[in-house]
């Protein structure tokens, strides 16, 4: 009975592995797991459980993505920042639309917002399709077009907290250009999954910086820590990219404080900074642990 319970629980942990791998080697792993456990135990050892989750995630990652080349970090960071910009613009469009519904008339900057969103969507598609040069061009366009569309050289809707948009575009353009001609990161399907993941991460980043933040900071930090650890197992480059999402809110809050000479919005900024430190530390720790296990 207890052996059946143990087997069932180990089988549950094997879900971390891809289905095809599980079908082929699941029973073999299970045999070794059961043979290695002390008789009478009903629950998997924490050490074994952790190793299975890590092993499963590593197997899902495959062997191709292991090389942590700097242009992959650049690639993913560009992707993450594009996703962030898209989420922000989507929020602005929603706000303009709401104002319109409330009878405020269509805001003069609505066209700019839609154009920017369109360009950013095209940019994401170009990255997923693997057209890096086109993507670099679209990145510049996404920064320049809204400015041209407004009367006084700056996008109308740009509120003081949005000055970092050009900074993002500059980073984006730089990273995309640097990675032109480098090998692509896996298949288009894999890039699409990564893009969707980064969109979710960007939405989460925007949401957690919203005022008031609906989650207690401690839960947030613990949650981010767990996610960062799992992410670092699968793909440290992606963790660095996600960490870059925390920079824009910090920049925005700082600029807001500087321009209006008001006190820094301490709370949001501190949370962002704390998360940035935590995620970066986990990323580094994962790299160091990996390096130390070498002899």
């Amino acid at each position, binding site marked *: 009975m207890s052996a059946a319970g143990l087997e069932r629980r180990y089988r549950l942990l094997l879900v971390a592995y891809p289905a095809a791998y599980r079908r082929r*080697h699941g*029973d*073999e*792993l*299970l*045999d*070794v*797991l059961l*043979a*290695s456990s002390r008789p009478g135990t009903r629950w998997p050892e924490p*050490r*074994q459980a*952790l*190793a*299975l*989750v*890590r*092993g*499963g995630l*590593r*197997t899902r990652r495959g*062997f191709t993505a292991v090389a942590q080349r700097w242009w992959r970090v650049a690639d993913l960071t560009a992707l993450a920042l594009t996703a962030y910009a898209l989420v922000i613009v989507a929020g602005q469009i929603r706000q303009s639309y709401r104002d319109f519904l409330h009878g405020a008339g269509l805001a003069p900057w609505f066209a700019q917002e839609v154009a920017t969103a369109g360009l950013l969507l095209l940019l994401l598609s170009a990255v997923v399709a693997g057209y890096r040069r086109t993507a670099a061009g679209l990145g510049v366009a996404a920064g320049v077009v809204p400015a041209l569309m407004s009367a006084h050289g700056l996008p109308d809707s740009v509120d003081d907290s949005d000055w970092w948009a050009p900074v993002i575009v500059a980073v984006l353009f730089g990273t995309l250009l640097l990675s032109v001609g480098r090998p692509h990161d896996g298949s288009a399907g894999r890039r699409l999954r990564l893009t969707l993941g980064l969109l979710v991460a960007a939405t989460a980043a925007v949401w957690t910086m919203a005022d008031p933040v609906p989650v207690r900071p401690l839960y947030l930090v613990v949650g981010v820590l767990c996610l960062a650890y799992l992410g670092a197992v699968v793909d440290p480059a992606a963790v660095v990219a996600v960490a870059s999402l925390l920079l824009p809110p910090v920049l925005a809050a700082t600029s807001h404080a500087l321009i209006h000479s008001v006190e820094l919005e301490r709370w949001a900024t501190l949370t962002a900074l704390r998360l940035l430190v935590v995620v970066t530390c986990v990323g580094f720790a994962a790299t160091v642990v990996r390096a130390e*296990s*070498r*002899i």
Partner: protein
Amino acid sequence: MSEPAYFVLAALMPGPLHGYAIAKEVSKLGGGRFTLAVGTLYSVLDRLTHEAYVTVTGEEIVNGRARRYFALTDAGRAALEYEAERMAQAVRVVKLRSTGEVGASST
């Protein structure tokens, strides 16, 4: 080369073994200092197979379940010996230094 990979290759030196036997052999070779968790063991075996340091020589059905036997390839043996020689050299550096210093302090 990672430490688990080194010990797995060392465990396979005498001949092909299946997963559980490799795990037992590794903990024996490590003097009980470390035991490989099953998830780690198979990650290492999959990687070594991918790098062609290890190959699957056959499958055996025990209680209706397949069990793979892993064997060291020539490339795996060469990599292991290279790694052992590299570490032996690193050990010699420290040994020479410590004996040298003992000599210096005694004069």
